[in-house]
């Protein structure tokens, strides 16, 4: 409409509307992200900040004191993630499948009740389970005794071999509501006609779930997997609330979040080192970025989507 010669008017309202969000987001999120990566290239010598290039990363991966801790935390983090993928998401999908069955009574009640652990803070969840599993209180052993399985009881959180799995399961208990809700929503959006068409061909019940519904909710399962991945690889709170910054026993529950916290904030007698902390944060960023890229380019783009 306007003649091409006239320079476009500055739309002030666009600037006014966008500025606050962009400013806060850039200043408090994007800028610190890059500043942290920049900090990982520096170190402090006699209270002077000094550029050292990739020296911190060399220490992190080359120096055995650091590298054993790092690989331990990364391995534990993967274990944490795998337990979530194998336990949390299947249970969530199963619950959603049951909940979405037509004419189920009290569905709303079950849904709200199962979601309750998700809204509780890690502090509550961590301590509550710590108390319940504690050998002093004896709720867990006496309950196992009631079903004749007392011999299975061990102070799980205190044993190196079990502590991480136990905490992963506690976290699964807490967050099962999220995959349940998202899959439930996806299942509800499947049109009735498709299921009816399947019924005409004799596909009902379980086989309807495996053959019709599951392929249709695969994109949602993909989203849940990447959400779980990102959440697990910057997890911290539950481990800290239940086991403290040292992620005991003997670092067996140490994950990247607790490792980074200990490193940059310091604990007990060790002083905090923001530069090594930044190096760990950068490594975490790289891991999350790789995961997100694998999802976006490897999985999501290949997934078939159905339009109804």
């Amino acid at each position, binding site marked *: 409409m306007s003649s091409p010669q006239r320079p476009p008017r500055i739309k002030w309202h666009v600037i006014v*509307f966008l500025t606050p969000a962009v400013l806060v987001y850039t200043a408090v999120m994007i800028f610190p*992200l890059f500043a942290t990566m920049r900090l990982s290239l520096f170190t402090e010598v006699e209270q002077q900040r000094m550029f050292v290039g990739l020296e911190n990363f060399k220490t992190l991966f080359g120096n055995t004191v650091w590298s054993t801790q790092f690989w331990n935390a990364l391995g534990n983090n993967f274990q944490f993630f795998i337990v979530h993928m194998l336990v949390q998401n299947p249970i969530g999908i199963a*619950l959603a499948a*049951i909940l979405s069955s037509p004419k189920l009574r009290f569905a709303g009640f079950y849904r709200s009740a199962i979601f309750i652990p998700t809204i*509780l*803070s890690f502090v509550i969840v961590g301590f509550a389970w710590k108390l319940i599993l504690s050998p002093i209180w004896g709720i867990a052993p006496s309950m196992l005794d009631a079903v004749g399985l007392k011999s299975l009881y061990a102070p799980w959180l205190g044993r190196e071999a079990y502590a991480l799995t136990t905490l992963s399961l506690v976290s699964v208990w807490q967050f099962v509501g999220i995959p349940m809700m998202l899959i439930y929503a996806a299942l509800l959006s499947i049109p009735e006609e498709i299921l009816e068409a399947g019924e005409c061909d004799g596909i009902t019940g379980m086989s309807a779930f495996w053959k019709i519904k599951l392929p249709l909710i695969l994109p949602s399962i993909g989203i849940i997997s990447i959400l779980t991945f990102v959440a697990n690889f910057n997890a911290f709170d539950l481990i800290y609330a239940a086991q403290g910054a040292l992620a005991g026993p003997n670092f067996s529950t140490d994950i990247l979040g607790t490792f980074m916290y200990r490193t940059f904030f310091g604990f007990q007698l060790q002083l905090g080192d*923001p530069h090594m902390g930044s190096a760990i*944060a950068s490594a975490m960023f790289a891991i999350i970025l790789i995961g997100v890229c694998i999802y976006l380019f490897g999985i999501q783009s290949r997934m078939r989507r159905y339009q109804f």
Partner: protein
Amino acid sequence: MNAARQNKTQIFAAHGALILYTLIALFPVFVIVINSFKTRKAIFREPLSLPNADSFSLVGYETVLKQGDFFKYFQNSMIVTVASLFFILLFGAMAAFTLAEYRFRGNTLMGLYLALGIMIPIRIGTVAILEMMVSTGLVNTLWALILVYTAQGLPLAVFILSEFMRQVSDDLKNAGRIDGLSEYRIFFRLVLPLVRPAMATVAVFNMIPIWNDLWFPLILAPAEEVKTLTLGSQVFIGQFVTDWNAVLSALSLAILPVMGLYVIFSRQLIRGITSGAVK
């Protein structure tokens, strides 16, 4: 006949599975709350029974209210959560409206830039955030937390809200323009009231993670007078590990406000999730 019976067993099995999982989900909360009302002896002797006249005791709550400044913590958490939600909604809606409504150079790029933060956790930048807060003197103030949570909540808020803003009819906005309303009035008077349900969804999504966060209060605002409820109860419980009455009461008191919020907002939250706001 056969089909009907099979149907009945199926329904029975469905309810069985759901009841079992509901019990698993609620059991720990139940145990904590009932035991917080018992004497120390009863807590250990009969952990699973309800408090009765004999075993009833409020000694744990007395300790908590005497020792910990839980009202102060509650107030801090409330201020941080409400202020963060206010800024997330205001700034987020403004940005979402701009992206959805106006054609300008860099529109798509701006949308992508703001969406980056949906997948990248803000915690990665903690070291630099702490340095920034120290140098601006905001460390150990509630403002530090409010700013961080606002930045953390904005990407998803802009994303969800702009989806909804696109659905607001153009005719309505153009009618407003013909009547001589400024763009600001169109936004605040016409568009905002129409996307209120979406704003509520965004608010509920952000509320619980902000209220429950432990990481940033621990790092940015650990001082006594700015402790949030989550951090406050964590520290309190850490100090009173051996006083089971106090620990159980503190846990129950920490559960209470979240449960209250959940009871008020659970419909909104569940509707938000199931309406596919997070795609």
